[in-house]
């Protein structure tokens, strides 16, 4: 338990942290000025409404660092129990990873490897379908710095950055005055394609409201028009909810742009069609490069979900949904992805790192997770930590923990923490679990003893 008795103590001195990094969303703004008083951030200059809520609400909470079956325990006991649960499992799942540092993600990937676990990240339920599409089509891409300096036609498709990435417009995509767009917003045209007239739509020059679940049809309409094919106007309007002339106008603007960008969101990946929708958008971007320079980028949600993709890719060769049970990685979304492994009742234990499947997964998946022993690491209390067999309260990355995160355009950004936390970091907990699992499952060979790893049943000692 953290001692928060402060009675009679003088007001702590005000500390300023320059260029702190916000890890709430994939924009990963690294220009925040934090005013810190003791173990509390009192002001976060330049942060948006989401960033401010992030910084001002992550103080040191009066909670036990570890709970085992709801009862306070020491971190060491928690690590031991967590390692036992995972090492004894036949089909463990390691899931989450997107709200922690790259350094912790690396340990999570190693742990999954020692366990022979299924390793999946929150990517599978955000841009996982786009990840599949990248493998099929490829990605014509760029950094956000290029968008800032060059982008003159900015399209948001199924994405609402005004609410999900509030500084996207001002920092990267619409407002900045760049090298080749010296007048900033006046040099750019913004188009929003969405089912709802969102707050982002109100910032656009052109809003195209499509029929729900018609993204695939609309994108293929644009591909056909970009190729110069004739289309039946009646059919197009019936399929997409917009007249052919609207799509013809958009294609002409796309071809005329000097540097076009499509930012796409979960309006594509979560809707019927999923990876086929993302594939259509990636293929359209590729097609447009016959006429001009055109790129696309998924707008990534969690602060380091892009890091999770990178780490899991460089450790296993695949970005998410990886099974390590055979000692080598196998990738199969739909089979090895957490939502499926849980809903089908396959996993018999889990490690949930920095994510909340108990709030976000389907009912069958949640019910199965409730039935199996699992370990959860989170700075806050969530529906997932409430049901965990072992729940660790961890220090918050970026606020208490240093390290690296990847911005949504795969640019690594360092973290500059504001104040230390009495709670351990994700990395420390994971390293502790990994050490025990490794010792138990793969004990160092003794002279004269067999080199074969210990059987899972002999782990208790």
């Amino acid at each position, binding site marked *: 338990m953290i001692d928060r008795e402060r009675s009679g103590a003088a007001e702590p001195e005000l500390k300023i942290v320059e260029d702190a990094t916000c890890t*709430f*969303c994939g924009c990963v703004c690294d220009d925040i000025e934090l005013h810190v008083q003791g173990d509390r951030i009192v002001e976060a200059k330049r942060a948006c*409404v*989401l960033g401010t*809520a*992030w910084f*001002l*609400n*992550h103080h040191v909470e009066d909670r036990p660092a570890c709970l085992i079956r709801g009862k306070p325990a020491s971190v060491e006991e928690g690590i031991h129990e967590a390692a036992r649960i995972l090492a004894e499992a036949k089909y463990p799942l390691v899931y989450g990873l997107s709200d922690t540092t790259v350094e912790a993600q690396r340990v999570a990937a190693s742990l999954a490897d020692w366990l022979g676990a299924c390793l*999946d990240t929150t990517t*599978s*339920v955000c841009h*996982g*379908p786009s990840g*599949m599409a990248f493998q099929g089509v490829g990605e014509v891409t760029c950094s956000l710095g290029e968008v800032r300096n060059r982008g003159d036609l900015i399209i948001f498709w199924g994405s*609402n950055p005004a*609410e*999900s990435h*509030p500084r996207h417009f001002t920092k990267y995509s619409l407002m900045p005055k760049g090298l080749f767009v010296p007048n900033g917003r006046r040099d750019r045209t913004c188009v929003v394609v969405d*089912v*709802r*007239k*969102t707050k982002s739509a109100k910032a656009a020059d052109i809003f195209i*409201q499509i029929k*729900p*679940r018609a993204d695939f049809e609309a994108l293929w309409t644009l591909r056909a028009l970009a190729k110069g094919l004739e289309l039946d106007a009646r059919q197009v309007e019936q399929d997409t909810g917009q007249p052919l002339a609207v799509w013809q106008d958009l294609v002409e603007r796309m071809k005329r742009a000097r540097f076009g960008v499509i930012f796409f969101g*979960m*309006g594509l990946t*979560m*809707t*019927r069609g*999923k*990876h086929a929708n993302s594939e259509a958008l990636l293929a359209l971007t590729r097609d447009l490069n016959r006429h001009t320079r055109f790129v696309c980028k998924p707008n990534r*949600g969690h602060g380091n979900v892009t890091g999770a993709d990178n780490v899991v890719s460089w450790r296993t060769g695949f970005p*998410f*949904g990886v099974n390590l049970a055979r000692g080598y990685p196998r990738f199969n*979304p*739909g*089979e090895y*992805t*957490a*939502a*499926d492994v849980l*809903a089908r009742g396959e996993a018999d234990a889990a490690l949930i790192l920095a994510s*909340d499947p*108990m*709030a*976000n*997964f*389907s*009912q*069958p*998946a*949640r019910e199965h997770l409730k039935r199996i022993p699992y370990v959860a690491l989170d700075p*806050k*209390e*969530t*529906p997932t930590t*409430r*049901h965990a067999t072992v729940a660790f309260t961890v220090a918050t990355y970026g606020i208490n923990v240093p390290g690296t995160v990847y911005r949504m355009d795969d640019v690594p950004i360092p973290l500059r923490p504001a104040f230390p936390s009495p709670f351990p970091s994700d990395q420390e907990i994971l390293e502790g679990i990994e050490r025990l699992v490794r010792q138990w499952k793969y004990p160092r060979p003794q002279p004269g003893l067999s080199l074969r790893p210990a059987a899972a049943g002999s782990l208790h000692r």
Partner: protein
Amino acid sequence: METHGDQRAMAEEKFILIPGRTSRQGCGISEGKFGTNYREEIQTLQMSPQDMARLQLKDGDWVRVATEHGSVEVPVVAAKADELPPGVLFIAYGELSSRLMGADTHGSGMPTSKGLDVTLTKCSPPEMPAGRHTPAN
């Protein structure tokens, strides 16, 4: 949330539901998922003003939203200005929206989480309105 009996008959209406992010839901995640802000935001359904008028619903009326996978009961409010077209509903992501989605990911790892076919009927509010803030899990 418990289910409650219909207050008065209203034909089952078909809608398409789009769960999504909102700033308030995003702030609520940082403030704490058991806090009022987050819970209120994820438990409020938005409907176009035209549909509200057609179905004679007013802000705060309770409705039952159901898919083939589950049902939830929530208060409904009119969406701002022209944010939602008729026939489309919106709710912030959270435990309630997840209860309406199926487990099948169609080989993608991603359950269909937006553009859900739902039916909507009017229902009576829960006996203790404070119950709407009670964590679902």
